[in-house]
């Protein structure tokens, strides 16, 4: 698999997320309270709002504009007004870096 180095693992506080651009595409990287990392597309599938200002609650990300929710583990929609799943990407942490398989 082709892994892309997106950021340092300590760029993201526990129980929070950041969004960052890579090759013109916005990605969201999540760091849960339990120390897990996940990655998804950075824009809500409803109105393309940047999820970076959203609220992470365990494994749910809530969009800052319309409060739609996704499960960050598989991107599945978990509350209106979102109906379409968020694309997610495999993540691994290596020497303090967040590596993401963007080709998956």
């Amino acid at each position, binding site marked *: 698999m082709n892994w892309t180095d997106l950021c340092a693992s300590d760029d993201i506080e526990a129980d929070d997320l950041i969004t960052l651009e890579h090759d013109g595409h916005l990605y969201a990287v999540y760091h849960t309270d339990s120390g897990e990392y996940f990655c998804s597309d950075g824009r809500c599938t409803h109105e*393309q709002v940047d999820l970076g200002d959203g*609220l992470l609650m365990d494994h749910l990300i809530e969009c800052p504009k*319309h409060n739609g929710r996704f499960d960050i583990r598989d991107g599945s929609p978990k509350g209106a007004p979102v109906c379409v799943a968020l694309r997610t990407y495999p993540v691994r942490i290596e020497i303090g870096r967040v590596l993401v398989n963007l080709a998956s």
Partner: protein
Amino acid sequence: MIDILAPLRFSSDRDYSLHGPARETAIEAGLASADWYRTPVDRKVMKELMKRSDGPALRDTAIWVALLLLTGALGVALWGSWWAVPVFAVYGVLYGSAADSRWHEMGHGTAFKTRWMNDVVYEFASFLMMRNSVVWRWSHSRHHTDTIIVGRDPEISMMRPPQLILLVLKTLGITAIPSEIAKLIGHARGKLSEDEADYVPQTEWPRAFLVARIHVAIYAAVVLACLIAWSLLPAMLIGLPRAYGVWFLIVVGLPQHAGLAEDVLDHRLNARTVLMSAPVRFIYSNMNYHVEHHMFPMVPYHALPRLHEVVRHDCPDPCPSLFAAWREILPALLRQLRDPDYFIVKTLPHGANQQARP
């Protein structure tokens, strides 16, 4: 679907429908699904403000439901005497006005931490307000995407020129039931209006029709109960309070956007924050902090007073009272009768960040 209130509207060249030329104009001007101004707030502070908990909403919902039950039971006990009048007046406000802000908060899903609690109260409050919970969820979502953007926002309550006859009839509760029941019956028959079809995804339509059928069945049962008992009492408890209790909602709710700019991408210019007393804020679920709510819809209603303090340096001065708000609004509405292009320009404080002006 037929708009039964259409004959009561003043004719105007301005087109607020979501399928007319204003829609294309808004899209071409970049006003649809646009980026809106938000006061910069430190992420740690914002995370604290957004934090969810069940406690405040459980407390406030319990008080609200208890007051509804208490005044409803008292109304039944006093039915037939003049003492029932003030009791039903209070019951009506708790039903036809307080349910609106509960509908709103639960619709955002921020009031409770536990999602199903939001959903249960959302369905209950939607029923009380005679609103299709599915259709209105999407309507409100659009209102937040395109707040007071003509041709895009389905929730512009004061169009220009202001429909003052309709406003009086709405405040007196005369239009609410015929208008909302007509919509519900349309939905129950499997029809959405052209505007509704614009913002409700097709996948949601079957659920919208089901909800409408349930609501219509309950209201039909209430009418039947009135006929069997040959008394208005069942309808005084379920249905009619939507009409006789809505006046309070209009008094506190209309100032949200009335008289302010259209087609701007800055909630400080098209929404209004009004300072209100604690009892009124309880009934209205703190929606008087309306600029703050639109800027940061993730913040639960109980944290809005704190958010107000965080962003007030960057926002226009709030109206100090409801009276002050209406003193600002009424002359503007009267002027808009003659000059529909007129609106109140909110002054940003010295040093505030500037954004798109109308």
